[in-house]
Structure formats: structure tokens, C-alpha cells
């Protein structure tokens, strides 16, 4: 008994304390509770890891109680830990505690301090549930819970209209995905009579391919919602309305990767559904390149990183889709490092510029905030796949697998890598070089914020060496051979360096170039700059029709016309018939009862005379 339940229990306790009594507490106490609870669960994860023995041979599985039982269907409150879960646990609790620590500095001057940390702890609780869950339903509980917390935290600045609308958007778009997920669960229950991972995956190979494909595609719908893939990615950029630590923790490092985790968890199902696999790969690739192009043109620093998050998630899905699950998870881990770092760095920059987010009003921060700058350099190197940084290994593994699967996927991926490098460094140059164009005097952030940055910087530089995920997961997902061709690596690295160099040329050496290019491209540029008008398209294609349709068709025609007409017609008819029948209504209850008794007697007589009556009576 490893008492896994303690891991989510700590943050939940923190949530209860801060949420219920936080209003009364001084900030120091709130910080202590929030950080300590997450650190405690991190420590328990370490304890489980050290004492857990060989997880590959015998994963931990703990059954606490039967949650719901009805007929043969039975769902227990189970937690299970194998190596995949262990990796996720480390990422969630580790980065989670770093970001909690960072947030104590970043949120210091905000309203509703305790509310923020209560939500953050609640998020940790649900995220850990999601990761630990031993069956789809527990996973789904966490899945919904993190969605809720994301909604709460995106709309944290309740006074800002844009924030609340962004929260609604995130929630509603996620509903679509969750709908798919729940359908998938229903299918699983119908076909396998259980939701427990081990049972489902042992039974899955036997099932017909068509079923598995349907399940996998529905799961994919859920994943696209939670992990912001085409077509449901639109909520993530808007979610940047939330406080930056939230963007770093929820919308970069942990929650948005839940989809990838879920697909990897269901690898057995996907492996037996080749069509679904193809779909995953294509969607991932499309999202990667699509989001990357948008990222090229944004000016809001957080938006840039948001789109890069979307495109990096696309990479992970590409990895999953081409069957390199371990590579996908690897990229998940490294991405958690450097993207969290990017966001926290961005947060630090915004902090330095007194809440300014538009990069055109920044610049020249290097001489003010050297620490932030240095860490941001590490992160940018890592994300553009600079050799021997964290991103280099994982991205390389994915691209190699993609090449082994379909060469053209590799090429598209490489081009995307180039674009990624370009816009990330573009952001860096625009913020840190040149003249400061903002207002007020920028200042370096406090150590509570820089400390986590440094830790994350080390991780993003060396993470590839520390965590060689494919080796760890070797027993679950055998490493695909054939991706050992070094030339592929050289090409991708070359693209990355090229992107860096180009951005350097365009935004430091010769800053006139961008305007000329924008002018030259003209319409195309506006198209990309406005994110391909996807939001507008959705608005006209989905939202408006729904609203108008429901008003005109459902309300005016169906409801008022047909239903009301029918009802009224029935009413008049009934009044006509009732006019005749009402003569029976003496208004005296006892006489009604009499007629009931008479009816009962008649019924008994019928029962008596028919043979079946006797059969029924005499059992």
C-alpha cells in the first residue's frame, strides 16, 4: 500500500484551507499553505518512486472503494501508477511547485490573492486525479475538473469582460471535446463492459477494428478539445487572458498535454485503429504548421507563445500519430520545461514593463533584466532545437519517427521547426534588443520569480540528458528503429539555426525588412495576422446559425406553430369531449372511488375466466 491517495489529497487540503478561510489569512500563510501542499505531494511522489520498486514489471494499483455499481457495471475509485504515470506525476508536481513558488511573487499585488491560490491548488488536485486515475471515469473526473479550474483561472480577473468571455470560450469549446470523450466512454462500456484500463486494454485487441476506430476517433475529439488541436484550438490563445502563471502551468505545461497523455494511455486502442492513427498524425502536423504561421505575425508576447504551444502540441500529436508514443511523451516533458520557462519569462518581462504585453512597446530590456533575458535565451534555444538542449532530442525523435512513417511529414515538420525558431527568437529580439519604447522604468523581478526561472532554464538546457523518456518507457512502447539517419538531424538543426539567424537579421540588423515583407505580402499577411479569421468563420458558420436557427425555426415555427397549435387543438378537442363526459363528474370523491372498485372487480372476473389469469395467480 503506497497510499497514492495522499498525492492529490495534499493540494485538496490546501484548496480547502485557502478557499474556506483564505479571506482571513495573511498572505504569508496563504503562500505557505499553497506551496507547501504542492511540495508535499511532490515529496510523496518521490517517496513512491523510490519505494515503488520496478514499476515496469509490477505497476502499483490501489483500489480504495467501489464508486458506483449497477448490475455487472462496476467502477471503483482506483489509482494506478506505472512508468508513464510516474513521468507525468513528476512533471505535474515538479513544475507545479515551481510555478506556485513563482506565483507567490508574481501575484503579490493582485486582488483575490487567496482565491487564486485556492483555484491553483484545486487544479493540482484534479490534474493529479487525471494522471493517477486507474480507469477512464476517474480520468474523466480529473479531465472535467481541470477544465473547470482552467475556466475559473482564465476568468480570474472577473472585472475584465474579455477575461470572462475568454473563460466562457475555453469552457464551451472544451464541452465539444468532452462530449466526444464521453461518447467514447459509452462505446467502451458497451463493448468491454468496463472502464478499467487494464481490462479494457487486455480486451481491446480482440475487438473489431471498426469499433476501435470509432472509439479512438471519439477519444481524439476529446483530445483535440483539451489539447487545443484543429479544429478546437481556438480557445487556447484567448485563454492567455488569465494570469501568466496560469498560462504557464495550465495552458502550457500540464493541462493542455492531458490529451497527449490520454492518447498515449490508450495506445493499445490506437495501435489497433490505423485510420485513427493517420488522423492523429495529420491533425497534429496540420495544427503544428498552421499555428506556427500565425505565431510569425503576432505582437502580443503571450499570444506568440500561446500559438507556439499549440504548434508544439501538434508535434506531440504527430509523434503519437506516427506511433512514436514515447517520443511524444518525451516532447511533452521537455516542452513542459521550456514552455513553462518561456511563459514565466514572459511574465517576468510583463512584470518588468508594468503589465505591458505588446512587444512593439518593449525592447532594450537586456540592460534592465539580465537574469530574465539569460533564462529566456536558454528557453528559446531549447524550443528551436539547438543541439543538445532538451528540445533538440525530443523534437528530433519525433521527426525521425515521422520520416520513418511518411517522409513528407518529416519535411513539413522541419519547415515548422524553422518557423518556430524564427518567431520565438523574433519575440526575444523585439523584447530585449534595441531601445525601450514602453512607459515607466522597467525593473528586474524579485528572486521568488527568478529562482524558478533558473531551475527551469537548467532543465530546458539539460533536460534531454536527465530524462531519456524513450529508454524509460522502453518496455511499454518499443523504440522505433530506422530513425538513426543523422542527416535528418543535421537538416532539422540547420533549419532551426536558419530561423534564428533570419530573425536576427530581420529584427536586429536590418529592422526595415519586416515592414517591406508585410507590405509585399499584403492580403496574405492580413489573413495570417488575423489568424485566418478562424474565429470569425466559426462565428458565422456555427454560432450565428445556431442562434438564428433556434430563434426562427425552433421558436417561431416549431414551438409556436406546430407544438402550440397541436396543444391548443388537443385542448379544444378535449373541451368538446369533456363537455359530454363531464356529466359523469359528480364532484364526489367517494362515488369516484366506487367506480374504481367496480373496475377492480371486473378486472378480477376477467382474470378468473381467462386461463392465463389462473396461471398468473397460481405462479
Amino acid at each position: 500500500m503506497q497510499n497514492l491517495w495522499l498525492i492529490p489529497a495534499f493540494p485538496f487540503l490546501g484548496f480547502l484551507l485557502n478557499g474556506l478561510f483564505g479571506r482571513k489569512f495573511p498572505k504569508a500563510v496563504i503562500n505557505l499553505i499553497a506551496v507547501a501542499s504542492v511540495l508535499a505531494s511532490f515529496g510523496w511522489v518521490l517517496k513512491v518512486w523510490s519505494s515503488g520498486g520496478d514499476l515496469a514489471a509490477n505497476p502499483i494499483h490501489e483500489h480504495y472503494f467501489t464508486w458506483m455499481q449497477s448490475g455487472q457495471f462496476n467502477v471503483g475509485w482506483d489509482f494506478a501508477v506505472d512508468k508513464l504515470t510516474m513521468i507525468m506525476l513528476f512533471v505535474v508536481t515538479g513544475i507545479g511547485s515551481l510555478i506556485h513558488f513563482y506565483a507567490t511573487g508574481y501575484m503579490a499585488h493582485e486582488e483575490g490573492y487567496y482565491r487564486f491560490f485556492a483555484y491553483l491548488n484545486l487544479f493540482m488536485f484534479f490534474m493529479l486525479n487525471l494522471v493517477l486515475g486507474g480507469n477512464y471515469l476517474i480520468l474523466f473526473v480529473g479531465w472535467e475538473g481541470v477544465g473547470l479550474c482552467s475556466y475559473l483561472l482564465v476568468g480570474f480577473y472577473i472585472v475584465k469582460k474579455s477575461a470572462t468571455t475568454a473563460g466562457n470560450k475555453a469552457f464551451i469549446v472544451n464541452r465539444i471535446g468532452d462530449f466526444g470523450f464521453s461518447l467514447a466512454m459509452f462505446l467502451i462500456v458497451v463493448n468491454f463492459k468496463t472502464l478499467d484500463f487494464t481490462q479494457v486494454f487486455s480486451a481491446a485487441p480482440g475487438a473489431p477494428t471498426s469499433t476501435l476506430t470509432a472509439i479512438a476517433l471519439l477519444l481524439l475529439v476529446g483530445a483535440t478539445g483539451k489539447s487545443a488541436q484543429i479544429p478546437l484550438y481556438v480557445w487556447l490563445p484567448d485563454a492567455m487572458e488569465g494570469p501568466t502563471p496560469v498560462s504557464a502551468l495550465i495552458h502550457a505545461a500540464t493541462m493542455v498535454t492531458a490529451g497527449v497523455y490520454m492518447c498515449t494511455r490508450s495506445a493499445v486502442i490506437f495501435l489497433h485503429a490505423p485510420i485513427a492513427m493517420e488522423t492523429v498524425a495529420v491533425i497534429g502536423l496540420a495544427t503544428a504548421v498552421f499555428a506556427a504561421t500565425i505565431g510569425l505575425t503576432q505582437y502580443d508576447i503571450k499570444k506568440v507563445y500561446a500559438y507556439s504551444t499549440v504548434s508544439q502540441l501538434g508535434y506531440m500529436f504527430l509523434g503519437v500519430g506516427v506511433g512514436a508514443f514515447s517520443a511524444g511523451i518525451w516532447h511533452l516533458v521537455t516542452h513542459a520545461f521550456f514552455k513553462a520557462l518561456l511563459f514565466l519569462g514572459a511574465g517576468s518581462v510583463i512584470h518588468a514593463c508594468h503589465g505591458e504585453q505588446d512587444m512593439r512597446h518593449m525592447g532594450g530590456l537586456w540592460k534592465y533584466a539580465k537574469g530574465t533575458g539569460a533564462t529566456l535565451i536558454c528557453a528559446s534555444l531549447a524550443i528551436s532545437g539547438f543541439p543538445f538542449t532538451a528540445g533538440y532530442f525530443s523534437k528530433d525523435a519525433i521527426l525521425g519517427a515521422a520520416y520513418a512513417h511518411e517522409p513528407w511529414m518529416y519535411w513539413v515538420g522541419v519547415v515548422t521547426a524553422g518557423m518556430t525558431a524564427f518567431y520565438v527568437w523574433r519575440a526575444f529580439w523585439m523584447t530585449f534588443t534595441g531601445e525601450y519604447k514602453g512607459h515607466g522604468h522597467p525593473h528586474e523581478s524579485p528572486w521568488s520569480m527568478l529562482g524558478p526561472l533558473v531551475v527551469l532554464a537548467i532543465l530546458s538546457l539539460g533536460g534531454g540528458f536527465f530524462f531519456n523518456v524513450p529508454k524509460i518507457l522502453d518496455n511499454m512502447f518499443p523504440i522505433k528503429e530506422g530513425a538513426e539517419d543523422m542527416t535528418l538531424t543535421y537538416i532539422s538543426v540547420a533549419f532551426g539555426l536558419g530561423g534564428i539567424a533570419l530573425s536576427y537579421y530581420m529584427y536586429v540588423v536590418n529592422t526595415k525588412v519586416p515592414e517591406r515583407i508585410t507590405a509585399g505580402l499584403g492580403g496574405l499577411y492580413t489573413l495570417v495576422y488575423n489568424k485566418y479569421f478562424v474565429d470569425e468563420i466559426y462565428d458565422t458558420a456555427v454560432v450565428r446559425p445556431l442562434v438564428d436557427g433556434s430563434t426562427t425555426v425552433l421558436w417561431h415555427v416549431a414551438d409556436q406553430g406546430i407544438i402550440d397549435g397541436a396543444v391548443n387543438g388537443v385542448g379544444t378537442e378535449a373541451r368538446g369531449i369533456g363537455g359530454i363526459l363531464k356529466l359523469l363528474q359528480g364532484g364526489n370523491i367517494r362515488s369516484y372511488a366506487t367506480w374504481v372498485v367496480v373496475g377492480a372487480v371486473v378486472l378480477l372476473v376477467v382474470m378468473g375466466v381467462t386461463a392465463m389469469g389462473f396461471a398468473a395467480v397460481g405462479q
Partner: protein
Amino acid sequence: MDLAFFFVFSAIALICAINVVLQRHPISSALSLVGVMGSLAVLYLQLGGEFIAMAQIIVYAGAVMVLFIFVIMLLNAGAESRSGKASWTAPLLGIPALLAFLGFTVYYFLRGFNNAGVVKFGGYTGGSAAGVGISLFTDYLLPFEVTSVLILIAIVGAIVLARKEMD
């Protein structure tokens, strides 16, 4: 032994039931009804339904009937009045029909259950608290949950109805 038991308590139940019908005063009827319920509870014990027997006393005799008496005391309801135009359908048509009903049912029971086996103390113990509980929370879980909703609705309805001002 079992026979004597059955006769004693069925006799009490019958007398009390007749009393319920014949007594003019609501309170007398109510207490006779309590008597019926008590003796039925004893019969439940004989039939092996311990839990149900206790629930019968706690819920019916202890709560529902107390509510009745409470209301009777509240309205200070005296012996019923004979005013108002009575309906003669009930006695004239109802009583014969009722007798026919009784005859048929008794006939069917004798006819259909003459070899249904016998009841004796300890002959069947499935109705213990454990048995009822297990069955209630596995096979009948959904109905159980639904009844909770029903009770909630009943509470709301009762409060709405019994409010002082009906605005």
C-alpha cells in the same frame, strides 16, 4: 406456537382495522390505525422481515401517524359532520362490489396459494438489516436514489402548501 401467534395478532389487526372504519372520531381512528400497524409489524417479524418490522414502527407509527395526530390536534377536528349532500352511489353500489372483490381475491388466494408453503419463526431470515441493505444498495440502487429526489420534492411541496400566507 406460530399459529397462536398469527391468530392473536391478526385478530388484533382486524379489530383495530374495523375500529378505524367505525370510530366517529378521527383520533380514535388514528390510534386504532397505530394498533393495526403495530400488529402488522409483529407479523412482519414472524415473516422474517426484522428490518421492515422496525421500519414500520419507526416510519409509520412513529412519524406518519404522529403527523396525523398532530394535524388532528391542530385543526381540533371533532367527530365528523353529516352535513352536505351525501352520495348514495358509494354505499349502494360500492358495498356489494366490495364484497364481490373480497370474495374473488380470497378465492384466488386459496385457489392459487394452497400449496405455497408454510411460515414459521426463523424459517426465512433474508429480511435482516444486512440482507435488505445489500439488496437495496446493489440491485435497487437507482430506485433508492430516485426516492431521495421524491422525498425532496415532497418536502418542498409540503412547505409551499403549508406556508402562512398563500401569495
